[in-house]
């Protein structure tokens, strides 16, 4: 058991899976000698050499395309895209191939690869270094979309992602890398992909979040308990797709109210799918319209204006109060 931040926790997952399984290898820009621009792959190059920790040329399409080939052959590449804003350079490989080989080859081939990328804002970064793009991947049939919220679940989910027989897009929020330390057990842990967690129980309102937004939901829940006497249930999705509808529906059947918080822009974002799933499963329990607190439908406005764009606790609180008072 050691207290680790998310960077170190992810590094531990990679290290242990590479020790355990020779088919696991790492591929990406600056992942080797430099240990990754966020240091998630630190030291792995020294331990496993440049055949297993590959500093690739600067070409996202070929990183993912070559990863597909390795995976078709039976290896388990963990590809790093340096920032999620640069994954559009390999989006065709992901949509055209990563997501489809199982189907196209009718099960003869599959692509057990993991594509890790830092995402998210609030870190005083420039354009393409601050966006949240999970909706694009969540929308593609054949992909799984995982977003941890803290060091321990990040480690466990990355291990599960590597072992998963299907391709997993694994988003790591830049603002969480160094945000907090948590006890992470030495023994390998996994967490089921496709399962959300109720991280706080409550009967009055369900707050649904993932990634960096979980902290906001929890803080809002604390405030609502203190100031309003309202007990919120907080759900950390952990996997965006496939969505754990059962957990969401069960919660809203109990609370009758839901507020969804995500950092991606609103329109056609994950919140729309989450809200519809709740409506499908818990329509008769609903006491108020389901609310979404999200970034606005604008391209990244520069970090000088970012605070007005990315959801904050105040916005979660006012949406929650309006929902409770409805």
């Amino acid at each position, binding site marked *: 058991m050691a207290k680790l931040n998310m960077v170190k926790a992810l590094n531990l997952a990679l290290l242990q899976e590479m020790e355990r399984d020779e088919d696991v290898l790492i591929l990406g820009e600056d992942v080797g000698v*430099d240990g990754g621009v966020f240091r998630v792959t630190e030291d792995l190059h020294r331990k496993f050499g440049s055949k297993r920790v590959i500093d690739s040329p*600067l070409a996202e399409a070929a990183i993912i395309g070559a990863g597909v080939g390795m995976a078709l052959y039976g290896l388990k590449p963990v590809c790093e895209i340096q920032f999620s804003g640069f994954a559009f350079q390999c989006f065709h490989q992901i949509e055209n191939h990563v997501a489809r080989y199982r189907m196209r080859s009718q099960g003869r081939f599959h692509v057990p690869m993991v594509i890790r990328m830092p995402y998210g804002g609030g870190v005083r970064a420039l354009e393409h270094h601050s966006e949240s793009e999970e909706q694009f991947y969540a929308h593609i049939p054949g992909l799984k979309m995982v977003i941890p919220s803290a060091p321990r679940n990040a480690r466990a989910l990355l291990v599960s992602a590597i072992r998963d027989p299907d391709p997993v897009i694994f988003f790591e929020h830049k603002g969480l890398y160094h945000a907090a330390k948590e006890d992470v057990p030495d023994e390998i842990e996994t967490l089921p992909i496709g399962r959300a967690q109720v991280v706080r129980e409550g009967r009055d309102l369900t707050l649904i979040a993932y990634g960096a937004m979980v902290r906001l939901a929890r803080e809002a829940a604390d405030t609502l308990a203190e100031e309003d006497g309202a007990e919120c249930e907080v759900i950390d999705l952990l996997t965006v797709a496939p969505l754990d509808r059962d957990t969401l529906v069960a919660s809203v059947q109990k609370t009758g109210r839901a507020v969804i918080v995500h950092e991606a822009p609103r329109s056609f974002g994950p919140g729309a799918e989450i809200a519809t799933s709740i409506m499908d499963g818990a329509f008769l329990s609903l006491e108020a319209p389901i*609310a979404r607190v999200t970034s606005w*439908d*604008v391209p990244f406005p520069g970090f000088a204006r970012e605070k*007005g764009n990315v959801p904050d606790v105040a916005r979660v609180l006012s949406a929650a109060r309006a929902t409770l*008072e*409805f």
Partner: protein
Amino acid sequence: MPRTVLEPRFQVEHLSILDSDGNLDSSLDPEIPSAELKRLYRAMLLGRRLDERMIRLQRQGRIGTFAPIKGQEASQVGAAATLRRTDWMVPSFRETAAMLLRGWPIEKLLLLFAGYLEGGQPDESQNDLPITIPVATQLPHAVGLAYAAQYRGDDAVVMAFCGDGATSEGDFHEAVNFAGVWHVPAVFVVQNNQWAISVPLKKQTHSRTIAQKALAYGIPGLQVDGNDVLAVYAACHEAVERARGGDGPTLIECVTYRLGVHTTADDPTKYRTAEEVEAWERKDPLTRFTAYLKKKRLLEEGLEDEVDKEIAAAVQRFEALGAAEPLTMFEHVYAELPAHLKAQREQLAGALGNGATPPAGDDDQASPPMRGQRTTRR
């Protein structure tokens, strides 16, 4: 059937005019007028001093991450100086000195790196694109601009910049190929500074030069000493005039070196040696050009102070600007603000003013349903 040679062996040339002590190879003297030499020098010096100032501003938290240019001043200035004001410049993200030469005000550059998109707005009189961060993606834009100039019958030339790492991206190859097929007036300037963050050139390409990549696409490619401003100027001048004359695109590889960090978030000691950096410091483009100008008696007294004052004044103007108004983030999304964005802007205005509790439902919903008020007919 015999095997026959289709192409004679490709040749790749390297051009160097000033050696590292500032001695001129007079047979290659591009005979740049004195006033132009002074303009080049001033731009390089301004680029260097601003870079140093920006690093301090970044360390103080007054601007965010940016990509310093130290060591690459000759490549940028020598290239951009061969353009006319009406020509187009398409930068990547490490062309501060070239941008200054092209007329970008210092405070706009500071604003951009302080997170204000206003800093990326070119003046109406400027044919310059704002910086592009996704590597190599700006290069096809240059081809399109050049095609459009030709289409309109303008004699404009388009100069696009990228780094050595960028030559691994598909967009680079697609752009150079298009430029060749369309025979457009474009000049690609590759600042080969030996590194793409931590990845050295030898892991980036198995080719001996970047210039030779042009040959595969049927366009001229030339390698120049990128720390020799005269060589860069001569090569780019030739390429720009060739483009303007209707003789198609060129790729120029400037062999240079990033003397500083990749960005202010980078630690180069993890991947390169101090000896390597020191060896390149001895080839510093600014020292070399200073030595040359000194011999020609063209160095201006007090220029450093003048440049520093210009920077200080710009920093002052930059700091006098108030905090960003968040509501303006809705202004340039579309030509006209659609209804849903109007609602979102109002919502943000309410949140900023600690306005009334929003209606239940999405926080941009204009007129929410009231409880018990069913509006459908059964």
